[in-house]
């Protein structure tokens, strides 16, 4: 069980105890864990809405909930999952915990702002939660005008306010990360020696800082329109509802990259460690992150192909959307090339990494389908689009998030998770995910629209398959929840470097001391150099 050595050594978890030592902490590691708990809550909340959606879609008649309730279910599923789970997921938990450690810093540049940003997420979450409990919101997570401003009788303002506040959490996290990467690197940690997770988190932070304020002002205008009837998006006054869509997607398309870029960073780490090779074409992968961050801002118009946007604008946006696939493809090819002749081990994080590469490739390639003007007209607002973005967000981001969580769990908690159960759950998640979402590609192609709960009988078989898959997926997601908690007490004690990884975070004990390193690290060579490290034995019992 617990060895004497672990109990005696001081680290960030036993430095101080009590609720205040957590709620007033300025330690980036503890704040990372606060985020972990918060977003896990929202993940299961969003999951509960998803469950009800899938139960409803078992039958073609729409007999489980009313149409109004169904509208609220998919809206609240989207709001909870996107704004309160996916956006903060990897950056705010794993990034918060490991970004300072990976560059050899004692903390982020602004620890108090870091704590503030957690509180902002919680306050924003409470507003949205209030809206959900008080009666829900039914506009879709996209809040399209004029429905959201004029016609909807649901809790639009409370929800939008919640997202507005949570947005500042995201902005401040991004700001903190950028300054930290620029100003806090350890001696010798040059830009080209930074782990790729740091690069991708840095690129993500740029998007958070540049994109989120635009969402904020859009929500302010939405708020003013709904409360004061000022009419900026009101066609009755000559206003343009499509302007709202432009402003909204100027943030919300880059937001997709806020979700997937950090995931790519995690995968770069995992693929390298578990094939014991330096990432192939390190610089290309690093710059690809930056390219995605920049190009991601130029493609929002592909959400408006059928929204009165001119055909010429559509052509340009279509072209640019193809363009953004290039840096993404560079990453996939480079991960694959890293595997080539590597010494591959199939530990749980690596299983997730393989899952990510496969699912992200499908999600990315179908992204090219919907970026094509003609095809997109056919599948706009169908389940094809739903399947596409779930392959990116769930198949991509959540796979990487879980992979990263398994990979860094020993460092965060000082305990190993049970490998057998973890492998089983990774497998279940992969199978459940595909069973849930692959039928939706076919459904969408055949013409099943999104956001409807009554559908023609011939779609039922595919919907039943999808719901069955969702049940499997739910089991897969519950398992880590259980064994992670179990491992806190009963897991094998983790050595400081169980995977034989090269990053600075593995050169300090597990769990790390309060200021991360007992003595400040000095970096002398490239990041993925496996010639000098070996993994330590895990002592069971």
């Amino acid at each position: 069980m617990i060895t004497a050595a672990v109990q005696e050594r001081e680290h960030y978890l036993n430095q101080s105890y009590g609720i205040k030592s957590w709620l007033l902490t300025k330690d980036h590691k503890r704040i990372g864990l606060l985020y972990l708990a918060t977003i896990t809550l929202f993940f299961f909340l969003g999951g509960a809405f998803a469950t009800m959606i899938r139960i409803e879609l078992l039958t073609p008649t729409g007999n489980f909930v009313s149409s109004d309730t169904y509208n609220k279910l998919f809206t609240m599923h989207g709001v909870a999952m996107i704004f309160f789970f996916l956006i903060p997921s990897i950056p705010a938990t794993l990034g918060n915990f490991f970004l300072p450690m990976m560059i050899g810093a004692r903390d982020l540049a602004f620890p108090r702002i870091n704590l503030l940003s957690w509180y902002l997420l919680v306050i924003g979450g409470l507003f949205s939660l209030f809206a959900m409990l008080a009666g829900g919101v039914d506009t879709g997570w996209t809040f399209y005008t004029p429905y959201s401003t004029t016609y909807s009788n649901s809790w639009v303002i409370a929800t939008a306010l919640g997202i507005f506040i949570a947005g500042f959490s995201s902005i401040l996290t991004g700001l903190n990360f950028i300054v930290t990467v620029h100003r806090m690197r350890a001696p010798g940690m040059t830009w080209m020696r930074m782990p790729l997770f740091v690069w991708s988190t840095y690129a993500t932070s740029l998007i958070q800082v540049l994109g989120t304020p635009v969402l904020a002002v859009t929500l302010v205008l939405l708020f003013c329109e709904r409360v004061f009837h000022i009419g900026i998006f009101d066609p009755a006054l000559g206003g343009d509802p499509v302007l709202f869509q432009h402003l909204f997607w100027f943030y919300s398309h880059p937001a997709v990259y806020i979700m997937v870029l950090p995931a790519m960073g995690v995968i770069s780490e995992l693929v390298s460690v578990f094939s014991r090779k330096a990432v192939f074409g390190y610089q290309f992968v690093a710059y690809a992150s930056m390219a995605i961050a920049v190009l991601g801002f130029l493609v929002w118009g592909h959400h408006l192909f059928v929204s009165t946007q001119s055909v010429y604008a559509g052509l340009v946006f279509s072209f640019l959307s193809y363009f953004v696939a290039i840096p993404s493809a560079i990453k996939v090819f480079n991960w694959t090339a890293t595997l080539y002749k590597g010494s591959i081990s199939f530990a749980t994080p690596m299983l997730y990494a393989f899952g990510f590469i496969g699912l992200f490739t499908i999600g990315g390639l179908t992204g090219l389908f919907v970026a094509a003007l003609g095809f997109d007209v056919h599948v706009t607002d169908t389940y094809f689009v739903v399947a596409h973005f779930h392959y990116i967000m769930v198949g991509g981001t959540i796979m990487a998030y879980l992979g990263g969580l398994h990979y860094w769990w020993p460092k965060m908690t000082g305990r190993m998770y049970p490998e057998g159960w973890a492998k089983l759950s990774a497998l279940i998640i992969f199978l459940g995910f595909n069973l849930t979402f692959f039928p939706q590609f076919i459904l969408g192609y055949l013409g099943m629209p999104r956001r409807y709960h009554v559908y023609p009988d011939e779609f039922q078989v595919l919907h039943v398959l999808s719901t069955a898959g969702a049940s499997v997926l739910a089991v897969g997601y519950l398992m880590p929840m259980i064994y992670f908690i179990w491992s806190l007490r009963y897991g094998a004690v983790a050595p400081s470097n169980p995977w034989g990884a090269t990053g600075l975070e593995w050169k300090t004990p597990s769990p790390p001391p309060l200021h991360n390193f007992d003595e400040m690290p000095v970096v002398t060579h490239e990041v993925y150099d496996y010639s000098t490290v070996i993994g330590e034995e895990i002592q069971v019992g």
Partner: protein
Amino acid sequence: MASESHVHEETVALREQFDTEAQQKDASTLGMWIFLITEVMFFGGIFLAYTVYRRAYPEIFAVASTTLNVYIGAANTVVLLCSSLTMVLAVRAAQLGKSKAIVLFLILTLILGGVFLGVKAYEWNEKYVEHHIPGPAFHMEGLSPDLQGHAQLFFSLYFAMTGLHALHMVIGAGLLSYLIMMARKGRYTAEYNTPVDLIGLYWHFVDIIWIFLFPLLYLIDRHLK
């Protein structure tokens, strides 16, 4: 580059995550600049909306713009520019370590900011009296009913833009009050004056927003006779 920072002073608070004071000051300054970039993006969204509608309804925007009182607007611009001057003088005083002068210039800045907000409130009240507040009661003399909506769009933008600007002024006034309090306690010296510097940056940024707002809102169709 803050190369003079090797002059150590007992009162300077070096936070534990930093190695040197130069690093701490650099980090704070970079953080403020990034924050100002987010502000640019924030106002950018609403400037975009302005651009779209002004291009869509140029004539009505010109007509609606002439109902604003350009003399009051111009006077207020001068007030705000003066507040930027006093802010700069406060920053300079801080760099020279003249703590009495810091307090004096900060108070002057706060007063000028207050004057600006007071004048703005007077202008808004004028709009209220003239029924130029967007909403069901909106009415603009001499315009046919189908153009009322377009004129209302101008005033929607006017209130959204000046309102958000005023909100930033109020936050700035709060920050100035904090600075004054701390400066009176003698917290800022030639060695440590980062907060004065950074809040100064914020204050100038808010001024610059107004420098854009004034011509866009007041000067659409003014000609020297």
